[in-house]
């Protein structure tokens, strides 16, 4: 079975942990997030008839915007960039974080999850904001940890991208 390390990235209170909780059953308690700064969960799914085990590193959002611990994301095969659709600032922070991670890890698969889509009345993002990203080739999924909307899809999209890249014979080009 293929194993892949995935990071959940996003500023504080965007719902990363809620998304993971919606997606997996945990071994470790969420106390780890506030102590060690990371909580790890596991999810196995099938992509193109191949089983993939995703090790989900749920990183604690930094108080300072757009900060990331490089050691935590090192070795990741992809990441889920999470922002809060009701907080425009978190959206911008996510874009900033993407830049930071690209600087550390290079171009690796990622999916942008715009969370809290169930709070449509408080929605702070315009369609054009999303379309701009999509135009740049970003995979963007509207999610709701509360209703479960888009959660499976976000992870599956990410896994598919990762496996697609995995099956590309990189060694021959390196």
């Amino acid at each position, binding site marked *: *079975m*293929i*194993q*892949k*390390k995935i990071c959940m990235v996003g500023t504080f209170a965007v719902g990363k942990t809620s998304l993971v909780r919606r997606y997996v059953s945990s*071994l*470790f308690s969420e106390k*780890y997030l506030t102590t*060690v*700064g*990371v909580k*790890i*969960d*596991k999810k196995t799914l099938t992509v193109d008839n191949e089983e*993939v*085990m995703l*090790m989900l*590193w749920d990183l604690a959002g930094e108080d300072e915007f757009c900060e990331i*611990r490089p*050691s*935590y994301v*090192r*070795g*990741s*095969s992809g990441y889920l960039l999470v922002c809060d659709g009701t907080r425009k600032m978190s959206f911008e922070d996510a874009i900033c974080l993407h830049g930071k991670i690209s600087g550390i890890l290079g171009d690796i698969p990622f999916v942008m999850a715009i969370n809290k889509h169930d709070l449509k009345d408080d929605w702070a993002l315009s369609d054009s904001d999303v379309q701009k990203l999509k135009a740049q080739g970003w995979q963007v999924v509207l999610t709701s940890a509360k209703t479960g909307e888009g959660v499976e899809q976000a992870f599956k999209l990410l896994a598919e991208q990762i496996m697609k890249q*995995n099956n590309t014979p*990189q*060694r021959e080009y390196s």
Partner: protein
Amino acid sequence: MSPLSHSHTQAIHTDPVALQQDQDLEQLRHLLLGKDYEELLALKARLQDSTGRARFIAEILPAAVQLSSLDNDRLTQALLQNVEDALHASVRKNPRPLVDALFPVIGPAIRKSITETLAELLQTINQMVEHSLSARSLKWRFDAWRTGTSYAEIVLKNTLIYQVEQAFLIDRKSGLLLNHISSDTAITKDPDMVSAMLTAIQDFITDSFQVNDQENLQQMRFGDLTVLIELGPRALLAVAIRGNPPDDIRQVMAETLEQIHLIHSDALQSYDGDSESFIATTPQLERCLLSQAEVKGVRHTSPLTWLLLMTAFIFLGYWLYGLYDTKVKWNTALDRLYQEPGLAITNTEERQGRYIVRGLRDELARDPAQVVGAKIAEQLNIEWKFQPYIALAPKFTRLRAEQILQPPDSTQMVIEGNRLILTGEAPQQWINEARQRALLIPGIQNTDTRGLHAAEQHELVFYEKKRYLESTILLFEYGQSSLTGQQAERIPELVSIIEQLKDTAAAMEELLNIIIIGHSDSHGSVQSHNEISMARAEYVKQALIENGLPSSLFSTVAMGARQPSTDSQGDGGEILDRRVTFQVQLVNQADSVEPIK
């Protein structure tokens, strides 16, 4: 034009014009290609020949396979499915050849596995038995119940000095688990997540405390659990140890990690999340699953403890011996009491260190304390509780008869069943009273006094002295006819007896005749026997006469060796044969001495 088109032309053109054209072309080819054309034709023929082609491939195939395996594993991957299918087909068709081929390998492997399993089981059972009845075991049983694990696991965990429970081989970069092994008794939880978390904790320490990148978290300790981490260039090895690990375990870890890096260098370098190939690291990781059970060391016991133990042992031995000795004495006492006539034991009891004996006792029976032995009776502190009774055993009937009748010395008494037989001489008055009193004796129903003769007092004295003298024996040394020592000293006593006999005989108006009978042993001739026996009788006669007795009282007889003593049987008994005895007779003056036969 290709060689193929050449043969094709030969095969289909049959008309003369076309044939001519082909021949022309053939010549042209020869002209253009020369010898190469012939070689091309030969090569074509070889390619068309399937046998030759197979032979050609067979020649180069081994080298080609070797080259391919050196370069990459594509050939292995390509053949993998075919080999698996071939194995399946072979087993379906006839499993025997494969079984025969694997037998030499599977046998030892199974034996080794069974041996190891049994050894582990034995260790577990040993420790379970050893700790099954201690105070600690109760706590462990509670722990087992509380944690939901088996008691055996708890025992093993607590009795090990240390045990490496789990080993994690982790990709250093991603924190993904490459391989994981655990001991049979370890409780494992999702090693994939644990390995990622171990990596995260490493990162946390590195980020939080600004340590050198080359340094790493080497050890974590929580209670009796220690996690040791050994860092390699591409992978890290973490082991979870229960107990106190020895220092050299880190050396083992380092060697293991080096070996894994050496053997699996390519796989580590190109790791992309597929941990399948790292299953091959299991033998290396198993080297780290070390353990050491608690060994009961020789404890040095203090001299005081030894002294106390020795004292206690001596006291225990003394107490046990006392118990044994008392038991033996008590059994001996009971045996004696049960066998003693005149005592009938009905009940015995031990109460608070005292022994109580109940039963019946004839007043003529011996004192029970005397029967048991005064010392034993005192040691056992026996309390006697006897009721009186009359024992009818012959011994007690006789004792009771003697007590009641008080017979004179001249009277003999014999009891046969319930009959009392009286013989000898006794005063008439006593005889009359005895006949009446005898019937009062318990156990006596009739009395036989036919052998009892009435006699006056002087007659009783005579018969008493007569019986005495007739039982007297004077002994002589071998070949001697004179008395020496103590035997000679008896003469005055005999003189006194004979004088009393003479006086009482006179009172009875009878004459006394004492026959002195000489005896000899069987040595020598009959004549010598007679001579020496006569000489001995004469010597005694002369000695009595010399002490004042009249010679008319005596006559002598030589018995020789004809009457050996009944007590002279056996070694040294012949001394009793060399003797002189006496016979007392009352005769009228007119009577002569009755010759001895």
